[in-house]
């Protein structure tokens, strides 16, 4: 038995999904797409039930990856029962998607979630009328309070019905649908899509295109608009018959603060600053504990084993990679994810997008791009993955360049460990400043030269609500799992390679080869090139390797302040880490991945050389 949850973004699907399945979630990547499908199993009355959380969508007719995925899922009858989740406060809008799902005639139950908020707004929902109009059973729930969530499964298994809701389309559309069905024998939902120019069947598209043109001539309106209007009209009609507006409780509208330029923008800056600061403080504290424990209880005993040198080298590399992965992944990225999920779950991110829209336009992007950028402060890998929300190739390309320059938490470690510790806090902030200036410069340059068109932001502002600790943790856990899945194997492989590299004494050769660059151009000691090389593997390793190679943790005693500063800025700018390059390659192709890497090497060396020249 398979049940799929379907609904608009922000209708509370994930919360319901989490409450139904607990924490035992698997994330499956749908074949051929980067969209994640969350699946979970539950046992109900001794039967195994698989629950799938489909991505939140507004429509089934579009061409975004999410919409294509859900459409394919419905077409193939991917689930035995669809649980359609509505936001009770936005019933009319949710019904629009429902009218489209109904075209596929699956078995459905309807769940009106957030009934608590609807009650607060004084909305009175007549379940019986709604159930009769939709032709499927309707359940009222409030996932944030856990109210009636336990009734979803029994209802889905016991009383789901094949939905029979039919949208009364304009009679020309109906006639066209019937004639297509008769001449080509294609199902109604396919014909509807074909009339709107979507589909793969060329014969159907051709015939539908001709009819659509005819209809457009008659109506002086695109078929798409006619169909959307018909669906919205039916939705409004149903919503009007089932919902009454009672007394509305007055609540304070926080948006009057959050979405005004003042105090909205200062609040936005404060929130971001606080997020980074707390990640930094909590992260360093946790990192120290983890690294110390790991070294004392695992690495030291391992070295004490005195294995044959080659074996020891390999084993040591694996352990160092594990230590590094855990030492950076948990303290910094996990803390960051918790903070990020917290902010996301309050619904604040959409306000940030709105406020940032103007500034982002200057950078050739739009408001929605702020989300990947903020994620980039935690880790570049998920930030690149979240580029999916941008619609055009141009936007994705520009944003990818910028994201790979945003100082991620690993780079924060480098800045903190080298500059803040040995040169001074103010100098550390100056590195951030330089990086931001470079980001803006890069963006302005790219927005001039990148081909393609700009799309612009259309974002629904999510309702502000109190985040749920359980959901925040579950979300952060899912994300960190994804990170570990991508980054860990790479960390281990590269660590072994570098270990072997050192073992066979290639390091010296490498250092001599690069001496003209490191010593002459950047004014650094020879061994800095190895440290920089390790930085490609993962950024904060540049700092740790430097300490190892210098033979002391007190870097101030072996390098001048200028050298340390140059080293830090070069390693911060220089080549995104291996995991980033891999994920860039997967999301945007080899060309962009190479371009970004080359650009960052060039930029790192250029800025390093300039600083070296200025100081000496």
């Amino acid at each position, binding site marked *: 038995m398979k049940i799929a949850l379907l609904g608009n973004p922000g209708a509370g699907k994930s919360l319901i999904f989490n409450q139904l399945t607990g924490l035992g979630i698997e994330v499956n990547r749908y074949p051929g797409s980067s969209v994640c499908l969350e699946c979970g199993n539950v046992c109900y009355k001794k039967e195994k039930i698989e629950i799938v959380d489909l991505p939140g969508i*507004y*429509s089934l*007719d*579009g061409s975004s990856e999410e919409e294509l995925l859900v459409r394919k899922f419905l077409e193939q009858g991917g689930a035995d029962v669809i649980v359609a989740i509505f936001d009770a*406060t*936005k019933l*009319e*809008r949710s019904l*629009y998607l429902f009218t489209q799902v109904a075209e596929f005639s699956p078995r459905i139950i309807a769940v009106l979630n957030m009934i608590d908020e609807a009650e607060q707004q004084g909305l009175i929902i007549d379940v019986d009328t709604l159930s009769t109009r939709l032709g499927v059973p309707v359940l009222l729930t409030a996932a944030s309070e856990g109210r009636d969530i336990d009734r979803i499964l029994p209802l889905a298994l016991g009383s789901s019905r094949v939905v029979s809701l039919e949208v009364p*389309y*304009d*009679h*020309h559309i*109906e*006639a066209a649908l*019937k*004639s297509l069905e*008769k001449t080509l024998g294609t199902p109604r939902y396919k014909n509807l899509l074909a009339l709107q120019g979507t589909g793969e069947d060329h014969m159907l598209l051709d015939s539908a295109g001709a*009819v659509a043109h*005819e209809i*457009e*001539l*008659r*109506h*002086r*309106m*695109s078929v*798409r*608009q*006619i169909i*959307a*209007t*018909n669906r*919205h*009209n039916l939705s409004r009609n149903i919503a009007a018959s089932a919902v009454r507006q009672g007394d509305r409780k007055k609540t304070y509208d926080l*948006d009057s603060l959050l*979405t*005004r*330029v003042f105090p909205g923008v200062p609040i936005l800056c404060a929130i971001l600053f606080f997020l980074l600061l707390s990640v930094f403080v909590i992260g360093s504290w946790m990192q120290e504990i983890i690294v110390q424990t790991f070294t004392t209880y695992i690495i030291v005993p391992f070295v004490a084993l005195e294995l044959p040198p080659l074996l020891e080298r390999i084993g040591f590399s694996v352990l160092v990679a594990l230590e590094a992965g855990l030492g950076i992944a948990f303290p910094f990225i996990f803390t960051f994810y918790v903070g990020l999920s917290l902010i996301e779950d309050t619904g604040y991110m*959409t306000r940030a*997008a*709105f*406020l940032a*829209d*103007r500034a982002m*336009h200057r950078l050739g992007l*739009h*408001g929605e791009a702020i989300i990947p950028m903020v994620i980039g402060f935690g880790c570049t890998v998920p930030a690149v993955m979240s580029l999916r929300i941008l619609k055009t190739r141009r936007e994705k390309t520009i944003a990818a360049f910028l994201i790979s320059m945003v100082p991620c938490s690993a780079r924060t470690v480098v800045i903190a460990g080298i500059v803040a510790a040995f040169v001074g806090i103010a100098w550390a902030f100056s590195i951030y400043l330089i990086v931001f200036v470079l980001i803006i410069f890069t963006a302005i340059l790219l927005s001039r030269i990148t081909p393609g*068109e*700009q*799309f*612009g*932001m*259309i*974002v*629904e*502002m999510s309702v502000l609500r109190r985040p749920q600790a359980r959901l925040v943790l579950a979300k952060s856990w899912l994300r960190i799992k994804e990170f570990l899945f991508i980054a860990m194997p790479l960390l281990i492989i590269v660590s072994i390679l570098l270990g072997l590299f050192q073992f066979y004494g290639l390091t010296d050769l490498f250092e001599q080869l690069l001496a003209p660059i490191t010593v002459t151009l950047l004014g650094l000691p020879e061994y800095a090139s190895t440290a920089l090389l390790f930085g490609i593997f993962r950024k904060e390793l540049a700092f740790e390797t430097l300490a190892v190679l210098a033979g002391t943790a007190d870097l101030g005693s072996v390098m001048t302040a200028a050298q340390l500063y140059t080293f830090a800025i070069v390693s911060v700018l220089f080549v995104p880490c291996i995991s980033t390059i891999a994920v860039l390659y997967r999301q945007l192709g080899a060309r962009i991945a190479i371009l970004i890497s080359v650009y960052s090497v060039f930029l790192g060396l250029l800025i390093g050389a300039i600083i070296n020249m200025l100081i000496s």
Partner: protein
Amino acid sequence: MQPSLREDYLEAIQHFTMTNGHSPLPQDLAAVFGKPESEIRSELDDLRLSGDITIAADTAIILTKAGRSVGECVIKKHETLQFFLSEILGMDSSTASSEACTLEHSVSDETVDRLGNYLKKTRMSGDTIADRQKTAVCGYTGTICDESCTPSSLLDFNEGDELVVRCILGQSSAKRLLDLGVVPGEKVTIRRKQGKDALVLQVKGCDVALSPEIAATVSVERYS
């Protein structure tokens, strides 16, 4: 047979013939009207007796000269009325279409002629294919938008204004806007506006943030 039913038949047959390039069969009409074929056949018989149609050997329905002129006339009335209702009065297009279906039977030839002339005067000349493509999403043939007055977009209004959507001009942004309920005839409110930049639009009880270039594609008028 009622005169309005007769006209509906002749209109449907003429429209079918024009669209498909061949005469309809009874089952085609059954599909159009959504009636059982037996009922269609008996009603077609009445039409044949009144001299509006002839029925060929393969049961194809062919309009007589008289029948065709009635059919064409009704189609013209329908189109004129529907255009008037949707484009000038701003009714939603399907309501306009079904309303036109009722009115077309009672409206006099003179009224339609005068209405047609009035529409011709106000709307941009020509209805070429290029024009159609330009305005395909909009459904807007320039009834009000000529050189002297450009339609106003969301950007021309202020925070708190209550507006009605007239049309959406942008091809690429149209889809998502339609899904969110920004359809012609929909009442919307501007909730927040950053000067000449991004704005928040309230539609169907939801707040939607739009970039200025998107907002510029939504043509609106004040709700009164």
